[in-house]
């Protein structure tokens, strides 16, 4: 039950964090703090300039990577309660987990070890929860099961194989019953 709640919390945590501060600006923007949402807009304002192809492509990539966090968090929010068998569940989860780790790494590289801004903290918390849940599953199922077997073989496959990511009927019943 705890694990299930933890899995369901990942998406909302990261989604909330997307709209809260992730980082402070550099140079003349030192006092400004930026959420993921604001970073998408800031990169967009930079893109409005007459930039070369490589700079423009880099900015687009950065925007897409940041947008990916919100989209992955939204997918995770939708899939975690009822459809953890879907391949997008582990994909979005690992995107959030690994992405959060990279973002924290960049933060430490820029500012040293200090408490992260609230938004980044929520993203990290979501990522850590997902990774922790995956580790638990890994230990339960064992090292022989691949990620795809654990995450992507769904209840709904013709083989009818269940996996650890899908709620058991009993869990479903409890969930429905409140």
């Amino acid at each position, binding site marked *: 039950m705890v694990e299930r709640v933890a899995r369901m919390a990942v998406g909302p945590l990261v989604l909330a964090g997307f709209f809260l501060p992730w980082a402070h600006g550099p140079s003349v923007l030192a006092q400004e703090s930026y959420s993921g949402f604001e970073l998408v807009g800031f990169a967009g304002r930079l893109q409005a300039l007459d930039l070369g192809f490589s700079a423009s492509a880099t900015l687009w990539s950065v925007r897409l990577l940041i947008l990916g966090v919100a989209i992955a968090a939204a997918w995770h929010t939708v899939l975690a309660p009822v459809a953890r068998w*879907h391949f997008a569940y582990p994909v979005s989860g690992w995107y959030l987990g690994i992405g959060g780790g990279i973002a924290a790494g960049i933060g430490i590289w820029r500012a040293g070890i200090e408490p992260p801004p609230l938004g980044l903290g929520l993203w990290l918390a979501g990522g850590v929860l997902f990774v922790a849940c995956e580790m638990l599953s890994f230990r339960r199922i064992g090292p022989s099961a691949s990620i795809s077997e654990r995450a992507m073989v769904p209840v709904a496959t013709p083989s009818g194989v269940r996996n650890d990511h899908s709620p058991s009927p009993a869990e479903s019943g409890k969930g429905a019953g409140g």
Partner: protein
Amino acid sequence: MDVLSRRSGAVALTGGLAALAVVLGWFLVSASGRAQGVELTTAELVPQDSTIYVAVNTKLDSSEWIAAFDLVEKLGLDDPESELIDAVEGGGEVDWEDDVAPFLGGNAAFYMRDYDWSGDPPEEFGVIVRAANAGRAMEVVFEQLGGGDPDEAEYEGQTYYFIPDPIDGDGYLARIGSHLVITATEAEMERVIDVAQGREPSLKDDSEFAALHDELTRNFIGFVYMDTEKLLGGALQSGLGVFVEDEDDLWQWGSSKTASVISAKDGGFVFQTAGQTEASPISPLLTARDESRFAGMVPADTAMLFSVYDVAGAWDGIIDAWGPYLDDAVAAEGEYDSYEEALDEAAAELGVENFEDFLELFDGEAALAAWFPTDDEDDGLFAFFAEVSDDARLREIIEGLDTIEVTGTETWGGVEVTLTEDEENPGEELAYTITDGYALFGDPEAVRRILEHEGDTLAGSGRYRSAKDTLGTRLGSFAYFDFPRIFTVFGGDEYVSEDELNMSALQALLFTMVEDGGFTRAAGAVTIDD
């Protein structure tokens, strides 16, 4: 069957997730990229009867500042952000992050309630800064003043501090919400507190201020609001009004309140100023147009184009309103007693009964275009255009002029052109033609260029269109300058100014005055590209 339905369920879920990604991505990109504009929170603390209010956008990550830094970089400054920090930090006594950044909360303003033209220093003014970190900003002010505890006082529950000698005198400092307020007098501080607490109206509550703010772009670097009547009224009372006899004459066609902004876009810097007006004698000259007919006729390599509209429509009103002034000006020259006498003489020369008969032919656009085909400014070519209401009548007037000596005719671009002796430069020729509702007059080479031109016109050229797009308003009477073509005459291809700015990056200047929607607006755009 069960398997199939489960598979179709999985496919439907995948489709739903894809749709969610697209919708969410689109929403986030469009919502985050929406230009927000500068919110003038400082105007909420400024007394409504202020004469001047100058605000600066202090949000350095706004699209305007990003564009401005980029444009300055194109003008040759390597890293304007770093140069700004270096300039502020100077010898190291100030640290940008600790001492400056806390003040940058969106907008900062200076206002003045009344300007004393007698020369005494003004006292009814204030500086208001929206701080990003008001607590730290207060500390910085106290540190800069020596670090001691300043004397404090209270008015209507609001604490404020006495700060010695902020700028050549004593001052008062208060923190009102996220704003820092500095005034020169205690009375002014109390006035600001009254405004902040709603006992006095603020500038932001003023409907004219709001209308002007709405009329101009909200994405600006600097904003200036001015009550010109109050400002100049003081000057007139102080005996400085030698240029007008009756100050009411100045404001009879609209409000004296104006607002101006300077902004930066991807293409260049933009200046706009606007005031609410009613129809005035010069309104016909400022008729809003989407495009200039003659910009669509001159070649793309035109270096300068000046265009006005409906001279005939403006004439009567100008004479009615400013006839006495014109009389004085003409009489001062000594040749004629009044402007009417001067016009009668001109009419006699033209062979028309009165000058208005001639002038009323010009009820459309009139323009002057210039080229510099070589690097020599003396080799400039000029052509004058004017739309005419009656081709035959104008032809009749011109052909009846005694002063014109026809030297020949040519056919250029299928149009018959008359060549005449240039009265002022003997041996040189001028050319004119009247065709298709307009008259064209100028250097024969310029007239031939226009009539035989088949390529891109100025209106279709990238540089002109970029200037128009950057300007962002309709055209009234306007002036256009193509800088690279002008600089080839004055500075060569690589024109660098004395302060090391790469002037070759300057592309064009487009300036217009236009009356549109109850506002008279002057706007200019300088486009920049490396």
